[in-house]
Structure formats: C-alpha cells, structure tokens
C-alpha cells in the first residue's frame, strides 16, 4: 500500500505554489509564499545533521577485534569492500557506490576520510561500543554509564552535541521559533547522538503528522485566522499557569529533583516562546498525510525531509537533525535476505561472514547489493534535503550554499564497531567557509594496509563552530589522548 503519494516532490510543489509542476521550486515559492520572521538576519547560516545509526557499509574478513592501527574499511586484498570510501584516495572527489545519488551535486560536497571519533575511541570498551559511540559522535564529550528508570544500562554524554551548541548560540543571536528541528525515522538504535546538555539527550519526533503539527501547524498563512489566534492565546494562558505550578514546587525540592523541575520549566518557557514567535511568521508550508505511521520508514523518511525543508524555507529554524534508525529497507530489494534480527545493524554484523574466508562468502555479492540499497536509501534522503535547499536562490547562490549539512554515523565499520575513519560527508559550505567538491584524507599511514590518524571529529566540530562565527579553540572533552586540539586543517 502506498500511503505517501501526496507528499512527494510534486506534491510539495503543488502545496507550495498551487500550480506549475514543471517549474523549479524557486519559482513556486519565492515572493510572498515563504515568509521570514521580522528582524531576521539577512542571510542566516544553517546547520543540518543527518545521522544514520549503525555504521556505514564496509566489510572486513577477519574475526579479530579491531585495534588501533588496523584498517577496517575494506582496503587491501584481505579486507573485502568499502562502499563508503571514495574511489580515488586523492583530493579529486570520485564518489563511492553508496553516494551514487549525489553525483550531480559533487561540486558542493566535501568528503572526509581518516578522521576518528577520538572521544569515543578513548572511552569505549573494545575501542568501539554502540552506547559510547552514540554518546560521543556529535558531542566529543566525556560520557558516563548509568541506569535508567526502566533498569537499562545507558551511557550519556556529559556535554552538548555540536548541533545543539549551534542551535543555542544561533537562537541567541536570532530568535526563531525553533532553535532546532529534531525528527527521526524510528526503529532499532542504541541511543540518540544529540544532547542539549550534560546527560540531556534530545528526544526526536518520530511521527510525521505530529512533526508537522509541531513545526508547521502553528504557522499562519497570511490571511487572518481567528481560530489560530484563539488557540495560541489559550496555549499561552495554559503554559503560564503550568509554569506557576512548577515554580511553586521549586523551593521544596532536593538539588537532584530541582534539576528535573528546572529543566521542565525551561522547556515550558521554550514552548511558550515558540508560540509567541510563531505568531510573527507567515508562510505557506506543505501538506502532510497524518495517516502515515511511525514504523512506515519508507514514507516517514521523505516527509521528515520535507518538514525540515519547509521549516528552513519558512525561516522557522537554523538547525535541524534527522536521525535514521538502523532499519532494514524492506521496500527495496533485499537479496541477502534474513539476518540474525530484523535490523539493519545485523546486516552489517554479517560482514565478516561475507568475506573470502567467511561462512557466507557465497552470498557476498547479495550482501553488497543489499547494503548499497539500504545505506543508499539514507543517502537518498540526504540528497532530497540537499537538492531542496539548492533549488532556492539566496544571496548570490542558493540556500544550500549558506547551509552546512553533515551526514554521519556512530561507526565506520558497523560490524567491528569501529570509531576510526568515521563516515563524514559535508554538503554546502556555510556561506563559503569550506571549499567543496573535494575529498580530504587525514590518514597518515604510509603502509596502504595500515591506518594512522591524529585528526578527530572534535577538530572538525571546532572548525564548524568557527565557520558559524564562533571563535572556539576546541570542542568537547579535554583529554591528553586527543591527537591535537583546534580546527581541522585544509577545510578552507
């Protein structure tokens, strides 16, 4: 059953402009249709993370646990395949199989190799563990283990993720309705990579209808809507009342309990600020099929992308995160067939078995085909987002040029839980801050079968903060085990 027929690109155009299916999005949307909040900066820089849980697609044929210095990316005759790596190790960007959908946008991409999640490697058991990797990949922070209310052992970052740092700082400069838009394609995963502060994971919306209601439902269309005004006024009255209730509790609390209530109050006041700021925005966004269920990943993915796009175009936010769970893409060909569990990560865990010495070597090609299709679907969503932004002129270029998009995962090789040589794909340049159309390789080993790097995601994230105008000298945990601190060389 196809439930997503009315939210494809064409429907987007239809909803936005009401005509002209053949026109580029720009012509249907520029002018009065897409509003801007008052006092907005002339051209705002934007940051978007697409996070794919469970690693990219590479296989290695050995069973040994990875150790630093080993390549786990498919390089060399003994090492199987790496579907993420560019076909050319040099600076000329020649995309790998997973990135096929991005070929037309190559000039606006920057692919990084040889970059470690150093904070993760330093802290994780076995040099790579889901919970530690997830908590550190976007935070570069110290992480700690604890037990949640249901009794599960969890690991939480003790610092904010890059997206939330940018959301908070950009929002302080330019108060848009949403410091960040956080949506997710639901399914198996080991914890969000996004944190708003110490031990404060960001919870992302998994239902497309609710995501629409939250992010776009309060936007006025330009014509007076007394019902919306009444609804928003009631909403503000409610939140005022609720906040008074939480404030009355504060003096009675232990320091631990006060953290909870203080956070609740902060969120309530953010909700109220959101309603009030939304009242200043006029925009015709998209329509969304509210019947699409969370588990319907095939259709949820494109809707969530369109919601982010609409939120960006309507000037509702400067930061967005799209989390993609580790799912099997059942609606695409699945030539490899069943894996230990019905989750994408299990597909990666059979990587070793599909190597030349593995028990499933006979099915190696099927495995590669299924992995390319599965991971390629996620890149397809990245492409949809990228193309959407690139179709809107802004300043001397497009909206994409003023945006920095990052695609990553908690692992490179998901089978070995490797936190070295992370998958890091950038698109756009945050207004020319990064030079795109290139591949940058930070692996310094001279032996082609070895791997050595001193460069970490904390360096990249420092550079990104700098690109957004924040002069940070370092991002994340300060540990002598880090290769070096400061920005990543060669990006400009």
């Amino acid at each position, binding site marked *: 059953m196809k439930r997503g027929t009315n939210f494809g690109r064409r429907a987007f155009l239809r909803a936005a402009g009401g005509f002209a299916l053949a026109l580029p999005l720009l012509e249907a949307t520029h002018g009065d249709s897409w509003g801007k909040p008052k006092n907005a900066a002339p051209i705002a820089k934007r940051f978007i993370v697409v996070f794919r849980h469970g690693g990219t697609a590479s296989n290695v044929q050995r069973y040994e646990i990875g150790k630093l210095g080993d390549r786990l990316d498919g390089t060399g005759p003994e090492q199987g395949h790496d579907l993420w790596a560019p076909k050319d190790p040099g600076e000329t960007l020649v995309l790998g199989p997973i990135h096929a959908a991005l070929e037309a946008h190559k000039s606006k991409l920057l692919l990084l190799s040889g970059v470690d999640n150093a904070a993760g490697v330093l802290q994780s058991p076995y040099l790579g563990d889901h919970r530690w990797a997830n908590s550190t990949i976007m935070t570069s922070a110290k992480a700690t283990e604890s037990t949640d209310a249901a*009794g599960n052992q969890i690991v939480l970052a003790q610092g904010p993720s890059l997206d939330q740092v940018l959301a908070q700082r950009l929002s302080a400069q330019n108060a848009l309705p949403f410091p960040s838009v956080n949506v997710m394609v639901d399914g198996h995963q080991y914890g969000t990579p996004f944190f708003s502060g110490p031990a404060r994971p960001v919870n992302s919306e998994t239902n497309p209808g609710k995501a629409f209601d939250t992010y776009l439902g309060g936007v006025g269309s330009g014509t007076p809507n007394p019902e919306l005004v009444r609804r928003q006024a009631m*909403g503000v009255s409610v939140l005022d009342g609720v906040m008074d209730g939480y404030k009355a509790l504060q003096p009675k609390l232990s320091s631990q309990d006060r953290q909870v209530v203080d956070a609740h109050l902060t969120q309530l006041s953010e909700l109220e600020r959101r309603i009030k700021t939304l009242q200043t925005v006029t925009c015709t966004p998209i329509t969304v099929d509210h019947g699409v269920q969370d588990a319907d990943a095939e259709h949820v993915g494109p809707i969530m992308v369109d919601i982010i796009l609409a939120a960006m175009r309507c000037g509702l936010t400067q930061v967005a995160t799209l989390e993609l769970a580790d799912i099997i893409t059942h609606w695409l060909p699945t030539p490899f067939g069943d894996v230990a*569990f019905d989750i994408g990560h299990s597909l990666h865990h059979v990587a070793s078995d599909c190597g030349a010495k593995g028990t499933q070597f006979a099915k190696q090609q099927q495995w590669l085909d299924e992995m390319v299709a599965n991971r390629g679907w996620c890149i397809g969503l990245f492409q949809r987002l990228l193309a959407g932004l690139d179709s809107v002129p802004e300043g001397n270029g497009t909206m994409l040029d003023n945006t920095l998009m990052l695609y990553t995962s908690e692992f490179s090789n998901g089978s070995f839980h490797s936190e070295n040589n992370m998958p890091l794909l950038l698109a756009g340049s945050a207004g020319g801050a990064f030079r795109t159309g290139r591949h940058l390789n930070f692996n310094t080993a001279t032996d082609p079968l070895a791997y050595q790097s001193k460069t970490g995601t904390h360096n990249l994230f420092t550079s990104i903060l700098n690109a957004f105008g924040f002069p940070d000298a370092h991002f994340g945990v300060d540990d002598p085990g880090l290769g070096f601190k400061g920005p990543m060389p060669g990006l400009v």
Partner: protein
Amino acid sequence: MRSLSVWAAAALVACTSTSEDVTGSASKPNGTAPDVPAGVTLDAAPSALHPLTPAQYRRTMRDLLGLADADVASIKIPTDAGGIPSLLTVSKLDDAATQLTALGAHRKLATCDVGGSGSTECATKFITDFGSKAFRHPVTPDEVTWLTGIYTSARLSFSFADSLDVVARVMLQSPQVVYVHEEGEPADGLPAGLLAVTQYELASRLSYFLWDSMPDDALFAAAAQKQLKGDGLRAQAKRMLDDPRARTKIVEFMTAWMELDGTARHVSIEEAVKDPARFPGDNPALRAAVRRETQELVGRVWEQGGKVDALFTSTDAYVNGPLAALYGVKNGPTGDAWAWVTLPADQRAGIATRAAFLLVYANPDIPSPIRRGSAVWREFMCTTFPPPPPAAMDVMIKGGETDPSGKPLSIRQTVTAKTMLDPVCMSCHQKVNPTGFAFGHYDALGQWQDKEKGVSPAGVTYTADIDTTGDLMGSDVAGPLDGAVALSAKLATSRQVKDCLASRTWRAAFARDVGDEEATSLKYVQDRLAASGSLRDALVGLIDSPAFQYMRKGTP
C-alpha cells in the same frame, strides 16, 4: 503424563487466600511505635521526584477522566534517558492535555451549565473537586489560589467553557499529576531524618505499584480516614491485588522481567520475524497469539496464588488453532477459538518453554543457545555479564557447518567451537552455553523438534542429534540437568530466582533500584517470597516493609 484436557476459558479459578493475611503481621502495633516487621531496620531511601511512566500517565488519564483504554491509546509520552525532561516530552504533555481536554470529560464535574457564562463559585468548586482527584490529594489552599488565578485570568479573554478547559489543561500537565513527588511527614518513634510517607502519598505508592494508575475512590477514602497503616494497609493491598488491574500490572511486570518487549540487546515478540522459507506458519497474528498465551499463563498463575514455581512448571496453555499446532496439541481448538489445554509435560514446563520466550531468544532461522542461556542468567538469576565484543554480536551460527574431516556440526558443536577456545569468550560462555543448550529441542519459533534440522551455510539440508545436557553452574541449583523441562524444574526451586524476582519489585514500586538503607527490607521481601513461594507475598511484603511506608528527603 497427564492426558490432554480442555477447560473453558471462562472457568478461571478465583483467587484463593494466601499466606499474606497471617504472615503479614510480623510485628504488633504498639502504641505509636512504627509498625515494622521483626528483624527489619526502620529505615528507607530518599524519595526522589520521578515522572509517571508513559503507561502510568495513560491509565491515570483514563481513570481520572472516566475514559476507556481506547480513548487514551494515542497518548504517548516519551521517556527521557537520564530522567531530565526533554523539550519533546514537555511538548507532548502539553499536547496530551489539549487532546484529553478536547474530549470534554472533565466538564462533567462542573456543577453549573458549562455552556453558559458560569461563575467564579462554580469554577472554584470544579477546581476543588477535579483538582483533589487529579492531584491525588485534597487540593491545598495554595493550589486553589493558583488555579482560581488561572481561571480568573483566562475568563477575561475566553468563554467560561474555554476557561475551565485552560484550568484542566494546566492540571493535566502539572507537577502534581505528571510527577510523583513526596514530602512525607514526621511521626513518633522515627530515627533522625526518617519521615512517614503521608496517607495520600501512600495511596499513590500503592496504586502505581499494584495498578500502574491513580488511586480509586476506596483508596482515597482509606487515606482520608488514615487507615493506610498496619492491618488497614494490608487490607487495601489485598483488595487491590484481587482487582483485575493488578493482574494487568503483574502480566506487564513479568513480560518486562522476560524482556519480551525488546531491548537494545534483542527484538520484541512482534519484531521477531522468522525466515518464511523455514517457518511458513510465522506471521504477525501468530506472534500476537504467542504473546497472549504467555500473558494468559502468567495471569492464570497469578490468579491461582502467584506461585513462582508454577511459573516455571505449569503445563497449562491458553491456545488458539495455530498455537495448538505449534505446540503439537492434538484435539485442541481450531482457528480463532481459544481454550485452555495441557501441554505434554515432557516437552513444556512454564514460561521459559513457551513460544514467546523461545522465539524472542532465537534468530530468524535457528535457535540461539547463547541468547536463551544468557536470558536465563540475566533475567531469572539477576546475573549480569560484561558486553560481548563487537565481532561476537549477531555472528551467524548456522549449524550444519563441517569440521575439518567434513563431518557436519550441530548448533551446539558450532557454538562450542566458536566460544570455548578463547579464554576471554570462555569466561562467560562456560556458564551461558550449558544453560542455553538445555533448550536444544525448540526451534527458532519454539516448536518441539526431536532432531535438529537445518540448512548448512553451503545450502545443504542436514539433521543432527540434539544433546540437551547442561548445567546452571555457579547457581544455587547447580548440577547436571537434561533439557529445558529439567532446567525449569531447577529454576522453580531456586532461591536465587526468587531473590532476583523480589529485587525486581523495587523498580516496579519506586522506579529505582534498592537503596542502601533498604537492605533489610529487601531481605524481608526475599524471605517472604522464599517462605511462601508466592509473588503476592513478595508484593505485600514490600508494602509491609519500612522501604514502602517511610522515606528520607534528598540532599537539599
């Protein structure tokens, strides 16, 4: 072996009196001295503010507003790892309050015409009546002032009905409703720093512990009359345990104990899709039936006294046609008809031998001795293992692999070869494997198999003999055993299993683990469970203990 018998589904055995009534009064109330069982230290852990679970919030809304489960099914409040409320959670609470208020159920409590212009008097009455129920304690003067202030301010802009809605929306996401926060009160005879949980706080402790919902009118009345102590408290506990809501809670508690809803480590029953080539009978309807069967078994054991040994030994099964076929029951129900049947006692005994447990702890194609064995240790014995190395996770063990001489290897032999040569692997697997091997006669769907049948990695169909000899090495019921029925018999008599189960009641009661101050309370609960073997006794024991009736304040 018992012959097959079929009972009518309706012929559920009524709750029989259990030992809680006689053994519960381990101490005699003596004047104003606290009522503490013999041998238990009068102490309790700090009470920490915590949110209702998503299910508790949903059921509280159902009971508060007089709604049906279906009315609140779409209310899904997220949980926040780490306990700090996220923007999404607070936003969803606001949405839920709006959605629930739109149903209009709260307006029925108004004593005047809601459609008219109303009056402050009518609004204040509504605030007092609805607030005292919603807040789970009589509204305080401060709360009335706060809420009437909201009403008065809203009424300046909105209709009377809308103004009541604003007040109701505030209440439904107020800290009094969303969180459990306890103040406690001083009482005679308590050591420094210890407080008695107030009567209304105790009512909520009871109702969320035993029902996952708010107190009912009878419990509120008991709190109002200060009857929640000693025999009065035990009488309420007994009444509540006999209520169908307790059965629902116990079924969910046991489902959580078995982790049948999935964790980061493994999938849920619904997600445990099997290889269609090998298991053409597997489908969502079958898995739904599998869940129901284990729920009904747990519910039946609960209704028959909650005996832990029966959980691990019962051959009763509530099945429909496809499940009867799965279990090889002859003359059982067909199609969608459900009936109680007796399963072959040489093949099945209790929850660990039912399809729900067996298919969750298996791969799509073959059973997983490692998952089954580690589940027994982790869940039933509260024994934790360090995480396996990444390359070990989900490594396919297909069975039918061959040794160097070309002889096909069984799953057991393959697992042994892959886990027992490396000393690091061996340290855990020497315990896990012999437990998991006992389940060798159940395939990945939980069907009985006399011989292991499978497809080798090379695609060749093979059969192998099944060796189910094993051990619960290092436990209180260690020793050789053969098969899952024998293993279950050992679990049924194990003190370690009962101690584990008793400790799990803490999380159900307090949303946290056992506190340092509560060691003797835990011992008391464990002793009661060991003495009577009844989960009912463990629950009543916890309610009887100082851990439940007293509290400390957290560090300011």
